[in-house]
């Protein structure tokens, strides 16, 4: 499969032996895993739709046809998936919905990574009082009801893409921070770190060049599971009617709005359901595949 040759896993570490690196092995194992490749294909398709929605979608997402309201799939030649309750092409809205979901999923994980990894590394490497403060902060945030808090924040500051991303990001970094801390803690006593310290390598350089690259694999796996979780969160908020604002399409909102019409117009609920399920499935398979591929226990 040529489309999947350039996976994110293929980023070889600089200067490394191209053949027996961890990443190369992992990529090989990943590509041999049929479910993982299937998941990756779905994810790539959704990413493609998200990026090129303007080119792929037959209509703009907010184009309203007052004479074509609530049409079934294949009812009209121009609307293969029918139209919604105000006469917008459903296929186009689904495609733009991929953009919303992917943006939220990836943005939330970028925030999670850029808060969680530095905090976790700092706590794990510096230790002492710094670790105590950061760890207590992590403990407190763990006991924070994340989704409820997101709902609260959105109800105060209003919905919209950036606010949804912000609201979901507030608790998204906790798992990453804890994971990074644990990883760094177990790695920092290794001989090669001690050797680096002996030769006078600075703290930041030890963290960045010696510890993080070795701690990265479980973090990447956690991130790949975090993306569908964020997509889930966005769908939930939008379903309640407090997430993404009209006219921007969101799969969760499409399901929520269709609730009123679904007894007759089943297609309004069916297609976004399939889209959410496929996206979740894709990311879960990729996550599972990455975990198996990167798990050192699997290396023969």
């Amino acid at each position: 499969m040529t489309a999947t040759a350039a996976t994110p896993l293929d980023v070889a570490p600089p200067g490394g032996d191209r053949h027996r690196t961890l990443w190369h092995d992992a990529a090989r194992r990943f590509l041999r895993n049929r479910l993982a490749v299937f998941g990756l294909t779905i994810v790539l398709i959704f990413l493609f739709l998200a990026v090129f929605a303007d080119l792929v979608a037959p209509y703009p997402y907010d184009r309203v046809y007052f004479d074509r309201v609530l049409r079934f799939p294949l009812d009209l030649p121009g609307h293969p998936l029918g139209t919604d309750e105000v006469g917008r092409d459903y296929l186009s809205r689904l495609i733009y919905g991929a953009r919303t979901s992917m943006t939220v999923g990836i943005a939330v994980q970028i925030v999670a990574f850029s808060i969680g990894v530095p905090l976790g590394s700092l706590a794990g490497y510096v230790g002492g009082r710094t670790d105590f403060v950061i760890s207590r902060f992590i403990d407190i945030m763990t006991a924070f009801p994340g989704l409820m808090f997101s709902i609260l924040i959105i109800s105060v500051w209003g919905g919209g893409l950036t606010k949804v991303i912000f609201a979901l990001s507030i608790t998204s970094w906790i798992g990453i921070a804890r994971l990074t801390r644990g990883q760094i803690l177990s790695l920092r006593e290794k001989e090669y770190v001690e050797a680096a310290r002996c030769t006078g390598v600075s703290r930041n350089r030890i963290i960045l060049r010696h510890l993080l690259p070795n701690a990265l694999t479980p973090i990447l796996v956690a991130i790949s599971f975090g993306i569908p979780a964020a997509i889930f969160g966005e769908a939930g908020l939008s379903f309640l009617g407090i997430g993404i604002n009209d006219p921007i399409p969101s799969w969760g909102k499409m399901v929520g709005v269709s609730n009123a019409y679904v007894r007759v117009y089943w297609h309004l609920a069916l297609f976004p359901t399939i889209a959410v399920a496929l996206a979740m499935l894709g990311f879960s398979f990729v996550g599972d595949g990455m975990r198996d591929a990167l798990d050192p226990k699997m290396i023969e």
Partner: protein
Amino acid sequence: MSASRPRVTYSGNSMARYIFGRILSLILVLFIVSVVTFFLMHQVPGGPFDETKAPLPPAAKENILRKYGLDKPIHIQYLNYMKNAVLHFDFGIPFQQPTTTVTALIAKSWKVTAQVGLMTVTLAFGLGITLGIYAAYHQNSWVDNITTFVAMLGITVPSFVVAMWLILFFAVRLKWLPMGGWNASETCLIGSAYICTDWILPVVAYALGPLAIIARYTRSSVVDVMRQDFTRTAQAKGLGEQAIMFRHILRNALIPMVTALGVIIPNLLTGSIFIEAVFRINGLGKFFVTSIFNRDYPMIMALFLLIAFLWSLTYLFTDIVYTWIDPRVRLGAEGGV
């Protein structure tokens, strides 16, 4: 959220200190939650007494604001609120139903949410663990395949979407079950209020997600233990299948389930919001949503504090149970990831 919390090791005396420390941090959490929520609530543009329809005379508005203590500076409002909440269990008067108190409203509706939650947990864990064990013992049988399929469905489809489809098929098309409600007397079988047909759809929709996770977790956990040396030893010395299963395999395989419990139960607390919204169940979750749409500060505040309290309590509880049932954690082996 994340299942992999690092486990610290304790023994004897340090266990008490650990629990004490955790309770202290629980109080700290609740304090922070209360401060953040309180100030967030008061940052909301628009109050409950803004004149949208008929403008109030300024004197009347002043009176109302004074009655609810909204004319004082915000930190005084906070201190007053917390004093009443902690000392008198008085969380104020809900703006949406000014004739009762927040405490009374919560007291009225928590039972419904607790019922939904309890039935869901029972179904999810009962069926999830059974399916997981069966699937582990009969790998690649049709039950295993169906379990995998249902697990995939439960993990990939949000509960509210499952709920909608269940309503569509079983209530709208087949007309077998009611579309919503909870304990509505006309839907209860055998003239008894304890077996109601309107329980089925919400609980099934709600339980599917956790059930999926539990079934998958149990299956892999049981398969892991089945490959352990002590299982082989038990088989070698001629123990019966039943004895091996209950005494050796399940005992060890179910320990990680406590961690799963600690992650699933808090999430169930918030998941109730969606289920109650879809099935129009008058529980805490639905109150939370209506309160948010009505900007009912006292109600939101109280509900959020309650959830935060239960949430951190479950975390504390599962951590304690975990150290109690798994001697390896106490003896100093590094658990978790």
